[in-house]
C-alpha cells in the first residue's frame, strides 16, 4: 500500500493533501458516497469469487478424505472420514458451511464470514493465522519489486520520451520487450546461475530477514512491471510533450528541466499511477513462481503447496484472501486516482456544489 503513494506523492501539493480529508471524506459528500458505493459493491464481488472458487474446488477431482487417510485405507475408514469431514453433504450444504460454519469436534469451523475456516488438512495450522503470518513476507517482496520498477521504470521512460527514437530509446525499448516477455522462472534461474552459482554475490535462497537474499527475487519479480511502467511512462510523456501548453511553456523561455519535470511529468504520471496500482495487485498474486523458486516463505508458496496437496480449506482461504486484497487495492487506486487528477477533483467539487444547490 505505501508504494501506491510513491507514484502519487509527486502529484500532490501540501495544499492538496490538506484539502483531501476536509472536503472529500465529509459524510454525505459525493466522494464519500462514491467510496461507500464501491465498498458495498465489494460484497457481491467477493461472494461471487468465493462461489466460483468453491465450485472449482468441488468439481476438481481431489479427495481430501483419501489424502488424509493415506494409502490402503479401508472402505469403512474412508466412509467414516468423509462423514467426519462433511464431504458427504450436497454441494449447496457444503458451500453454506463454508460461509456460515460447520460443527464437528475435530473438523469444525465458524465459516468464512466469521474469518475462520478451521485448520489446514495438511499442516493442521489455523488457515487465516498461516495466511496472515506469511502475507507480510509477500508484501515485502511485492513492495520491493514495485519500488524497483518505479525507480527504474519512470526515469527510463522519461529519458526514452524526451529523446524518442534515439539509441538510448531503442536500447530501453528492447530491454522493456525482454522484461515483458521473459518468463519469471527463466529470469530467476539465469540470475541464480549468474549471481549465486558463479559470482557468489547473492544467496539462492531468499529469506525475509536477510536483505541481501531479497535482491534476486525482487529483481526477478520487478522485471515485468518495470517494463510495463517504462513503456507506460514513455507513451504518456510523449502524449503530454506534444500538448500546446508544453509548447507555450517552452516559448515562454522555461528551461527544459522545468518543462519536463514540472509541467509534463505531473500530467504524464496520472495513468502510470493506475498501472502501478494494478501492477501491485498482480505482484501480490504473481509472486507465486518467484517465491517457489527462491524458497521464500510467502503466501504464494503456501498456495502452491496447498494446491499440490489438495488442501481444500487452505486453497479456499488463500484464494479468497488474495481476491479481497486485489479488490481492495483496486478500490484504493480508484480513490487515489480521483485525488490526484485535478480534472476528477474539479468534477467532484462541481457535483458537490450542484447537489448542495438542489437541496
Amino acid at each position, binding site marked *: 500500500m505505501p508504494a501506491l503513494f510513491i507514484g502519487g506523492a509527486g502529484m500532490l501539493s501540501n495544499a492538496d493533501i490538506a484539502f483531501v480529508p476536509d472536503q472529500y471524506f465529509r459524510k454525505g459528500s459525493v466522494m464519500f458516497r462514491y467510496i461507500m458505493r464501491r465498498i458495498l459493491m465489494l460484497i457481491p464481488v467477493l461472494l461471487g469469487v468465493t462461489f466460483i472458487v468453491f465450485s472449482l474446488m468441488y468439481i476438481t477431482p481431489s479427495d481430501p478424505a483419501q489424502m488424509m487417510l493415506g494409502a*490402503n485405507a479401508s472402505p469403512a475408514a*474412508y466412509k467414516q472420514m468423509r462423514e467426519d469431514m462433511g464431504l458427504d453433504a450436497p454441494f449447496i450444504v457444503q458451500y453454506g458451511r463454508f460461509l456460515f460454519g460447520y460443527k464437528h469436534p475435530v473438523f469444525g469451523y465458524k465459516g468464512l464470514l466469521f474469518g475462520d475456516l478451521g485448520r489446514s488438512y495438511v499442516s493442521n495450522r489455523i488457515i487465516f493465522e498461516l495466511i496472515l503470518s506469511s502475507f507480510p513476507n509477500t508484501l515485502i517482496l511485492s513492495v520491493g519489486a514495485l519500488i524497483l520498477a518505479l525507480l527504474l521504470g519512470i526515469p527510463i521512460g522519461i529519458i526514452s520520451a524526451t529523446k524518442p527514437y534515439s539509441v538510448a530509446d531503442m536500447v530501453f525499448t528492447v530491454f522493456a520487450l525482454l522484461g515483458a516477455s521473459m518468463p519469471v522462472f527463466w529470469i530467476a534461474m539465469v540470475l541464480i546461475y549468474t549471481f549465486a*552459482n558463479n*559470482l557468489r554475490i547473492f544467496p539462492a535462497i531468499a529469506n525475509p530477514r536477510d536483505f541481501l537474499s531479497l535482491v534476486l527475487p525482487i529483481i526477478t519479480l520487478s522485471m515485468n512491471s518495470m517494463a510495463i511502467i517504462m513503456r507506460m511512462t514513455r507513451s504518456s510523456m510523449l502524449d503530454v510533450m506534444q500538448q500546446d501548453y508544453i509548447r507555450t511553456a517552452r516559448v515562454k523561455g522555461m528551461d527544459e528541466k522545468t518543462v519536463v519535470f514540472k509541467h509534463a511529468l505531473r500530467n504524464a504520471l496520472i495513468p502510470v499511477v493506475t498501472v502501478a496500482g494494478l501492477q501491485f495487485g498482480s505482484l501480490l498474486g504473481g509472486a507465486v513462481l518467484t517465491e517457489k523458486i527462491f524458497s521464500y516463505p510467502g503466501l504464494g508458496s503456501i498456495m502452491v503447496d496447498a494446491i499440490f496437496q489438495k488442501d481444500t480449506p487452505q486453497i479456499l482461504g488463500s484464494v479468497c484472501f488474495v481476491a479481497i486484497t486485489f479488490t481492495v487495492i483496486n478500490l484504493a487506486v480508484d480513490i487515489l486516482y480521483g485525488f490526484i487528477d485535478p480534472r476528477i477533483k474539479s468534477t467532484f467539487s462541481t457535483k458537490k456544489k450542484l447537489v448542495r444547490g438542489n437541496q
Partner: protein
Amino acid sequence: MKKFLSIVLICLALGGVVFAQAKKGPTLRNRDPDTLVFVLAAAPQPLDPNIYTTLNEAQIMREINETLIGMKSDNTFYPILAETIPTIQNGLVSKDGSVYTIKLRKGVKFHNGNPFTADDVVFSFNRILHHPKSSSKSMFSAVLSVVKVDDYTVKITFGKLKDPEYATVALTSWEDRAKYMTASPYGPALNILAHYCSGIEDKETVEAAGADYGTKIVVGTGPYKFVSWPNPQEVQLTRNEAWWGDANTVAFKNIVFRAMSEQPQVNNVLITGEVDMAFNLSKLDIGNLERNGLVITTKPGVTIWYGVFNMNSDLVGQKKNGKLDLSGQYTEGDSTHLRRAIFYSINPVPFIKQVDIFNGYAVPANQMMQPGFLGYVEGAPAGTPFAEFNEKTWYYNKEKAKAEFAMLSPEFRAKLGPESVTLVVGNVTDRVKIANNIKDQVKTTLGFDLIKVVPMVNAQIIQQSKTGDGYDMVVTAWFTPTMDPDYTCIIYGGDSIGTGMNGALYNNDIVNKNIQIGRYSLDRKTREEAYIKVQTQLMTDKPYFPMVYENVLFASHPRVGNLDQAIFKTKLVDIHLLTRLQ
C-alpha cells in the same frame, strides 16, 4: 566505430566474468558450521508421528520421537525404547506368536523432563488406531490391544478380523477391536513397531496441547528436540543434550529442515553451499554436482515403478461371459492375448538410461517385490515365468508380442482403433514421460498405435481404481516404508479391492491365500515360500508389469560423513548418525 568496438569488448569481458564456470566447490556462505541444513521435497505436515505419515515430516520426527524398536540400514532390528527385541526364544513373544511383551527402557525422559512410561506407549498406539485424523490406521490394523502391565512393561497383542465381512466396520476403540478381532501371530510385527508412525509421544503434553500439538508444541525422547517452525517451509531442531543415547555422539548441534520442491534449484543451493544434504535432485544434472565437489551417494531403494492391467477392462482384462473371471484358472481370451502382447512389447531399460527420467539411477524390475525382501525370487529359475527376464532387455520379446497380437480374433481386432487402450498416469512429468515411452514402444513393436496416454491427478486415479472404471492400464509407483513384503502385497491382495490400491482389481485365490499365510505366520521360511508363490502366480497371470526398482540418491556437502550407515533404503536419514568431516 571505435565506440561500438569498445562497447562490444566491455560486454564480452563482462559476459566472460559472469558466465565463467566457477568450480569453487560448496562453501558454507556464512552459515553456522554447527548447523546441518537438510532439504525436504515438500513442506512437512505436523510433527505428530501417530497421525501423519508422509516422508517429509517422517524425516524430522525420527530425530524427535523414538520408536520401541529400530531398524538399521542393513534391515536388522535393534532396541530403542524397548530394552530388548522380543522373540519366542527369550520368552517375550507368546508361543502362539500373537502377544509381544515389551520391557521399556528405564530412566528415559521426554524433552520437557517428563518420564517415559508404559502409559505413553498405550496412549500413542491408541492415537494411531483411533484418532479421527490418523493416516496410519491401516498399517497398524493388526494391533488388537496394547495393555500396560506395569510402568515399564506393555503387552501388545496382534490379531485379525474374526470374519472378513467385518472389514466394512470402522474400528474406533479398543472395545471394537476386542469385539471384531481375534488374536493371531503377525509376520510384520517387528517391522511396524520399527515404523516411524509408532514414535512414542508424551501423553501429558499431547493432551495439554490439543490441536496445537505438532505445529507449536512437539516433544519426544530422541537425539534432537524441536525449537521452532517459523514458516511452513522451515523447521529448526537442536541437539537434546540430555539424550539417553549419549548426545556426545551426535555431530551436528542444530538441524534446519528446508522444504524445496524445485529440483533445479535444489541442485543450485547444493552447489552454492547453502544446504548440506538433499535427495530431490534434478537427475539430469548429477554430473554438474559431482564436478562442483558434492558427494553423491546412491543405493538400492524400496520404490518399485510398475504398470497395471485393469482386470475389469474389456480390452486387457480377464472376463468370462461378461463377468470378472477372477479364479486361479481362467480361459484365455482375446483380452488375455492383447494383455500379453502389450506386456512383451515393453522394455524399461531405455527409460532407465534416459537422462531426464532415471538417468541410470534404477535397475529393471523382474517381479512385483523389491530385491532383498522376503519372498523375492533371486535370478531367473528355469520353468518359472522369471526365466524370460534378463537385465538387458527385461521381458521384452518382439516375436512373442507379435504372436500374441496375431492370435486376436478378427472381431476383437476390428474393435481396436488407434489409441483404443487408455493408459492413465499421474499428472507428474516423470510419470507422463514413462507412459509416453510405453506408448511408443508398443507402437514400434506391434506396428499399431494402440495406447492413449491420459494424465490425471492422483486422487482421481485412486477413485477410479476403487471400481476399475474408465481405464485399461495405469503407470504408477509403490513405496514400502515397513520394509516387509506384506506392505507391498497391498497392491495385489484381493482384500485391497475397493481401497484404490489394487488398481488391477486382481483377485486370485492362490495369491490371496499365500498373502494371508505370509501375513499371519512368524516362521521366516513359511513366509518366504508363501511370498514366492505369490510372485510366481503374479508373473504367470501378468495383471501387472513390474518395470523399475528406483535407487535412493543423495547429494551432500563434503563436510558430511558416515553417509552409508545413515542413509536408508526408504530415503530417510538418521541424521544423528552423520559425522562432520570438516
